[in-house]
């Protein structure tokens, strides 16, 4: 009888421990971090015409936010002639000399008609905001 009681007590004790640990320890629920959800644009179906035209409509633009500062306007207007400024924000932080070489490549290799004064401003803008020492976002 005493043995039975002690078994019962032990069982009850274990259950208590188990209950406590369920509440406090074995798992923890309801934890949510913060994250931004970005919208995904739903596609329109292809036009229902049986002619020989195959169209996908316009490709969407996703203009990035460029760092604020001197030279941003020049950077936007000249770079956008050929490509979106995602080409800037996609890059890793690049050393100042690499940015200078990139601007030179755009002018000399690709023929971008950027006047010298503007090229200097663009180079300085990129070096001010997009190097390992300066890039923040």
């Amino acid at each position, binding site marked *: 009888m005493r043995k039975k009681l002690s078994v019962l007590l032990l069982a009850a004790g274990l259950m208590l421990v188990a209950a406590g640990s369920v509440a406090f320890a074995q798992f923890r629920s309801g934890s949510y971090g913060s994250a931004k959800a970005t919208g995904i644009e739903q596609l329109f179906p292809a036009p229902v015409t049986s002619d020989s035209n195959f169209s*996908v409509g316009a490709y969407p633009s996703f203009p990035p936010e460029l760092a604020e500062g001197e030279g941003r306007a020049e950077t936007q207007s000249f770079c956008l002639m050929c490509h979106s400024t*995602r080409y800037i924000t996609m890059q890793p932080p690049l050393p100042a000399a690499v940015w200078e070489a990139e601007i030179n490549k755009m002018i000399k290799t690709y023929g971008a008609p950027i006047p010298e004064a503007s090229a200097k401003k663009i180079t300085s803008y990129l070096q001010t905001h997009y190097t390992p020492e300066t890039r923040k976002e």
Partner: protein
Amino acid sequence: MVTWRGNVSRRDALKFLGAAGGGLALGKWFAAPGGPAHAQERPDAKSIEAFTGPGPNPHWNSVGPYVSEPQKAPLILLTDRPVQLETPRNYFRTAFTPNDAFYVRWHLSEIPNNIDLAAWKLKMEGNVNKPLALSLSDLTTKFKPFSIAAVNQCSGNSRSRLQPRVPGGQWGNGAMGNAMWTGVRLRDLLDAAGVKDGSLQVQFQGLETGAGPSGLGSSAFLKSLEVSNSALDEAVVAYSMNGEPLPMLNGFPVRLVVPGYFATYWMKSLTWIRVLTAADENFWMKTAYRIPDTPRGNTTPEEIKAGSVKTVPIARMPVRSFLISPNGGTKVPAGFSITLRGIAFSGYGRIAKVETSDDSGKNWSAAVLGEDHGPYSFRTWEAAWTPRTPGKYTVAVRATDEKGNVQPDEPVWNPGGYLWNRVEKEEIVVGKAS
């Protein structure tokens, strides 16, 4: 009864118990090896990383946001004009990459939104006996169809791994895909047009142009291969991708498929096939897409600065393999039998062997290869793995192709950010199961 709210950490819980524990030895239920410092808390995930660097990108994929483009599932944005999109890791569980998830890479901003197939013709011109202008229905009905499974991989795939980082598309590993391509063999088309004596190269041009002055690389994208190159014997002008029309962003209505070669030669929206009698000196051959003429295309910034590096046009893809699952995001209980899965391929022929290691490459054991879809296809592989002891495991995978090329565990560096094929590694955490 205490109700735990959102962000109460386990350490806070311990503090609470320490204060209110009342002698209950509950602490041991928490006691992971190493105590509270070993807590499973992860720092709150950043919403979206805008960039990586100056160190190597630590993620499997690049870090852009997901975007929806025409005919595409949400893919990872590199750039929007021209369009460059990366395929997320989870799409590589199978040997064939779905068309709507297939990565996208254009060089110049004027890319087709609309093609009128009543007007569009594939032109065979240059040093040929009989110039041809073929409609899509000519291609599908007048020539014998030919199918081949082949991997299309961007020359700069994994560029974000390089140290020091180099400018260019900052791809993770997802600038690749495998498809069953069906179309007309390039040789059949060249034979139909009749390549004349004295021909040196075949030039490919698609509907990809840019705002730059004519004659420069910024005005048109063109690529060429030697007439005598055996890759041309295997090349296909493909009008079908995994049994469907090509998505516009992957080169509708036809693109060139050059099995084993990097994607730079796989001209999208191919419209001109031009037989040349002199070497193509255009920017995309003479200046871009060139690799150091060294083992693995490896060099250093110092050698580049010194101007001592001879370069050649990029060509075949070195052997690579990838672990796709588990992806490192899930802790595995000790003793749990899981399956490592992934893909492998080589531009030099069939995958002969895939090996995995759970000690960062000290010891290797052979994986089981999946169905063989041909020498230029992704080959799936899997390996059973039962980690017995809790801890951190660095799982590595390496492939060997039929020519005996083995993936090295050494980085590559060249200024273009090409040819990365280092052994891939993933840290997998194994926890106590009892």
